[in-house]
């Protein structure tokens, strides 16, 4: 049964194991990775795609992704660019993917939301008028679940 709305989307994500959540979250983020192109983000996504990650490895990429996130904040008063700003949300989404302690958190949902904000940034830059990121994410999840 295809996912058609966020309520279903969120609860289906919740049923996934942590490892599965990381993998599907990485798939979401890959769609917007071009806004960031940061190697630390790439490393985080690559790590999240693997089924077997040790705590130590996770800690390393998590730290690096967080640094990338903090560095990508738009500074108060500086001139900014929405496409670049999208990079902040890509970083936030990637941080969700490799978050070490995840009790009770739906990290895939968090990542999906941040990816949508990244798309909104693209819309804000005037390059795109509207986006259907949610629908794209439903399709990715359905595809993942069917495997």
């Amino acid at each position: 049964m295809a996912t058609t709305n966020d309520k279903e989307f969120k609860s289906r994500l919740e049923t996934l194991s942590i490892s599965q959540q990381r993998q599907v979250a990485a798939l979401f983020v890959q769609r917007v990775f071009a806004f960031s192109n940061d190697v630390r983000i790439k490393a985080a996504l690559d790590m999240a795609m693997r089924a077997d990650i040790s705590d130590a490895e996770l800690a390393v990429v998590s730290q690096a992704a967080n640094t990338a996130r903090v560095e990508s904040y738009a500074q108060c008063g500086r001139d900014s660019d929405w496409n670049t700003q999208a990079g902040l949300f890509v970083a936030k989404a990637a941080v969700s993917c490799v978050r070490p302690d995840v009790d009770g958190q739906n990290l895939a949902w968090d990542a999906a939301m941040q990816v949508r904000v990244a798309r909104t940034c693209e819309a804000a830059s005037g390059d795109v008028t509207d986006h259907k990121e949610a629908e794209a994410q439903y399709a990715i999840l359905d595809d993942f679940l069917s495997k």
Partner: protein
Amino acid sequence: MSASLEKGVRVLKEVIDAPIASYFSSCVHCGLCAEACLFYTETGDPKYTPIHKLEPMRRLYEQEYTVLGRLKKLIGLSKAVTDAELAEWQELVYNSCTLCGRCSAVCPVGNDIVYMVRKFREGMSASGNAPEGIKGAANRTITIGSPMGVKLPAVKAQMRHVQEDYGLPIPMDVEGSEYLVMLSSMEIMNFPEYLGAIAKIMHQAGKTWTLCSTAFEATNAGMQIGNSDLARVIVSRIVEGAERLKVKTVISPECGHAYTALRWEGANLVGRPFSFHVKHIIEVLGEFQEQGLLKTDGFETDRLTFHDPCQLARRGGVIKQQRSLMNMVTKNFVEMPDAGFMNWCCGGGGGASAIEEGEELRMEAFKKKKSQFDAVKPDRVVTACANCRIVMEEGIEHYKMNLPVVGLTEMIADHIPNPVAAKPEGN
């Protein structure tokens, strides 16, 4: 004298009033202001002593407004203020001062040093000695409407995003609304969740509110740079919008200096009292809480502390509300030493974080904030200013700490159940 210096000196002469004259006449060089300033305490460099940041203005005061000073000038015994001197003072007046106001709180003879720095910046900016970073921000605010170049289509995009996520419409230009909500570029760009949080809260409280298409920006770079003319243009836009939409209250967002600019300087900049109230979002939330309009669910259980933004607490008088709000949704709220009125500045306000050359100094000054964190070892820090959030995250990152920073308004909204009337897509 170059044209700019002449203008700067003229402006400085104009801003000197009885309080400033009284303050300069009262200073006894006790040095206590330095002990209250994080730029001195964390560097040990006495040039950061707050009253010293005003030395050119003090000399000008003496030379222009005292009998003895004027006599000395006549017989050639006084040292004139020069362009080079003002250029040298740029670092002291901008990079190493966030207008936090701790100095004014401790001076034993009662000097309001932050008031003087604010006025000194008028002269600095008129003489062309304001930092490039803030000059750009000020210009962008005038020409584009936002210091960071945020335009209306971007705001509309965020509005659409919130509408989809929460199923709550974001009103714009609705006449007769009770509240006009202002945003800051920092929030629009870095913390878009803020708009959704406002929508949820207003919906639950049952209040009418609106954005304004011609005045969505609260950040006042004119105030930070110390240029009253620019500051006035920005405030006038907001006044025009508020009056056109006939709102009762304008809400200033989670940005410290925007509040100071609108709430306390605004009426004086436009030359007449406002016909509407101005409140910080935390004040409004505090009122809603008191009136029983906020019905929250659940509690944060991790160890939390609150960082009081300088312009909100010490300089704005909003100190109790954030604590009541914290207690409403948290179980383990601990106060840092010096929390509340005497809280230490994050080190990045007043335009400081827009100054690239000042970054190293800010990181050093951050040691003070770090020591406050170390004293209580919280799991997360909560605050109510978008710039404080980022400045603290950068400092935390620099010192390799693991300490997330969150916004209070969003935290409150997280504990408000999502609207039932939402379409399924909005979850």
